[in-house]
C-alpha cells in the first residue's frame, strides 16, 4: 500500500495533498499496489468524501478530540499506530509547512530515513526512487530509500492532479488512542498576517520584486497586480527583504523559498545565483529589468527591457482588458 497523509486547514483538504495522492495513485498503479489516504483530526469524516475521487481505495479517518488541532507529536503517534496496522510500503506527505514538520518526526518514530521536497518519483527495478533538489535547485539527486516504509514529502505545485472520478473507495473510521502526554506542544492559535495574501509556495502566479523596486511603498504596484490575478502571490528577492521593504515570508531563493509556479514575473530583479536557484523550475519566467544584461534574462522565456515604473501602469491596464474579455 502507498499511504498518503491528507492535510486539511479550515475545513478543506489541501490541494497539494490531492496532488500528492494523485502521484501516489500513478505510482501505485505501476507498482501493483493500492493507494490509500489518511485524514487526522476531530470530526473530519466529511473531508473523506473530498478525497475519494482522487483514486484512494480507502480513506482512513483517525479520530481523537486531542487531535482537533495540529500537533506534530500527536499526529506522528496517530500515523505510527495506523502504519503498524496497515503496513504501508510507502508513506507520502505534501511538503507544506505541516508536512515538513510532521514527516521527519514520523520517519524517526518508524526508524526510517526519508527524502524531502521531491519534485519527481520514478519506478526503477520494481521499487520507487525519488528525485529531489539540493542546494535549492542548483543540483538534483535521485535517491533510493532502503527503509520500510519509504517516507517522502512532495513539493506542492509540481505533480498534476489525476482526473477526479467516482471509483467506489471506502471510508474507514478509526478511533486512535492518544495520551495527553503525547501532545508535547500546544498549538495555541493561528496568527494571520494582515492582508492575508497567498503564500508564494502555493501560488500559481508569482509577481516578484527586487532591488529595482526602490522602496517598500512600490510593492503596492505588485500587490495591485496580484489582486487582478487569481491564485497569485507577491514574492521578493533577498535584497528587497534585507532592505526591509517586505517581510521574509515573501523571499524566493536559497535563503527563502523555492517555488515552481506556472508563471514567475521577475520585476526589477537582476537574478543573483541564489535567487535563480529558488525560481528557475518555474514553468514560465518573465523578466522586466532596465539593464539588458541582467542575468535574469538568461533564464527568462520573455524579457522586457525597460523602466518598470513606466511599464507596470500600462501593463496593469492591458491586463485588465484581457481579463475582462
Amino acid at each position, binding site marked *: 500500500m502507498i499511504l498518503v497523509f491528507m492535510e486539511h486547514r479550515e475545513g478543506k483538504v489541501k490541494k497539494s495533498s490531492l496532488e500528492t495522492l494523485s502521484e501516489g495513485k500513478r505510482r501505485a498503479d505501476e507498482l501493483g499496489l493500492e493507494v490509500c489516504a489518511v485524514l487526522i483530526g476531530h470530526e473530519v469524516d466529511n473531508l473523506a468524501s473530498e478525497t475519494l475521487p482522487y483514486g484512494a481505495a480507502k480513506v482512513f479517518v483517525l479520530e481523537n478530540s486531542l487531535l482537533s488541532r495540529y500537533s506534530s*507529536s500527536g499526529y*506522528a503517534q496517530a500515523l505510527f499506530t495506523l502504519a503498524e496496522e496497515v503496513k504501508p510500503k510507502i508513506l507520502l506527505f505534501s511538503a*507544506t*509547512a505541516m508536512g*515538513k*514538520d510532521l*514527516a*521527519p518526526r514520523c520517519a*524517526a*518514530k518508524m526508524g*526510517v*530515513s526519508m*527524502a524531502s521536497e521531491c519534485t519527481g518519483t520514478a519506478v*526503477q527495478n520494481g521499487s520507487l*526512487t525519488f528525485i529531489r533538489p*539540493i*542546494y*535549492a535547485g*542548483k*543540483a538534483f*539527486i*535521485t*535517491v*533510493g*530509500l*532502503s527503509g520500510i516504509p519509504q517516507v517522502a514529502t512532495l513539493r506542492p505545485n509540481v505533480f498534476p492532479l489525476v482526473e477526479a472520478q467516482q471509483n467506489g473507495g471506502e471510508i474507514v473510521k478509526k478511533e486512535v488512542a492518544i495520551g495527553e502526554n503525547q501532545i*508535547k*506542544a500546544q*498549538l*495555541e492559535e*493561528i*496568527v494571520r*498576517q494582515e492582508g*492575508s495574501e497567498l503564500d508564494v*509556495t*502555493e501560488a500559481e*502566479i508569482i509577481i516578484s520584486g527586487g532591488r529595482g523596486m526602490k522602496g517598500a511603498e512600490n510593492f503596492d504596484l505588485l500587490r495591485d497586480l496580484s489582486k487582478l490575478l487569481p491564485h497569485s502571490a507577491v514574492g521578493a528577492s533577498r535584497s528587497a527583504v534585507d532592505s526591509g521593504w517586505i*517581510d*521574509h*515570508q515573501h523571499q524566493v*531563493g*536559497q*535563503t527563502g523559498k523555492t517555488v515552481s509556479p506556472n508563471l514567475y514575473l521577475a520585476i526589477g530583479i537582476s537574478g*543573483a*545565483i541564489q535567487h535563480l*536557484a529558488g525560481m528557475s523550475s518555474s514553468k*514560465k*519566467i*518573465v523578466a522586466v529589468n532596465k539593464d*539588458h544584461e541582467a542575468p535574469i534574462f*538568461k533564464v527568462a*522565456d*520573455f*524579457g*522586457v527591457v525597460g523602466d518598470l515604473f513606466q*511599464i507596470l501602469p*500600462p*501593463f496593469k491596464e492591458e491586463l485588465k482588458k*484581457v*481579463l475582462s474579455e
Partner: protein
Amino acid sequence: MNIFVFVKRVPDTESKIKIAHNEARIIEEGLNFVLNPYDEYAVEEALQIREAKGGTVTVVSVGSDAATTILKKCLAMGADEAVLIKDDNPESYDGLRTARIIVQFLKNKAGDYDLLLFGKQSVGADNAQIPAMVAELMDLPQGNVVTSLEIEGSKGSVLREIEGASEKISFPLPAVVSAQKGLNEPRYETLKGIMAAKKKEIPVISLEELGLDKEAIKPQISVLKMESPPERQAGRKIEGEPQDLAKQLVQFLHEEAKVI
C-alpha cells in the same frame, strides 16, 4: 539555561555547484564554505537568551576537521563552548543518520540541557529533517521554522511560520527549536571574540566514542544519480515604448504562455 546549538558547514549561497557525475557528489574544491545561514540565527538566539537569563551556550557540529572554522566563528560570536563530532564520511543526504549521531551525543556526553537549537535546514542538503527527528528520538516537543521565541521560566513559546500565517505554539522545556530567517539579526564577531576563539580548545569526539559502529551510521539513503538542473533557454527580449512593451507582454502571457 543550558543551550546546545547544532551547526553545519555549507557552501555559501553565492556558490555555483559543480558535480562529479561518476561519484554522484558535488566538487568541493574552490567553494567558499560558511556557517549555515539559518544556524547563525540559532546561535544568535542562544546568545540573546543567555544574556537575558544566564547559562551556557555550547555549539556542536557533526563533520570533518574543516568544520572547526565555523565552530570558531560561533565562539567568536560569543558561544561558551564548542564540540566537534568527527565524521569524515561524505555527505549522505540522510537526515536520520545525523539525527542519530546527535541523539547519541545528547544521551552520552551532553549532560543536562534546556534548549536544543538548530537552523530550520542546512542550505545544501535542504532536508529540514534533523530538528524534528531529534525531537522525536529524545521524546521532546518541537517548534520548527520559528520567527519568534520566548522563554518564561520552564516554558517556551514560539511563532512558527506556515503558509500565509504563523502558528503560536507553547511547550515545556527542554525542547527543540529551529530558526527561520527573521528570528533575529545575527551579530558580527568582535576582535576580542576572534582572539579568544583562536585560543579556545575545541574537544573532538569520535563516532566510536559515542558508541556508534559502522552499521549504526550506515546511510539508508543511496544517491543513485546527481545532475545539474535542466538549462533554461533565454527566450525573446523586447525593447521600446512602455505602452507597446506592456501590450506585447500581455499578449505573450495570454496567447503564447497561456497563463492568463
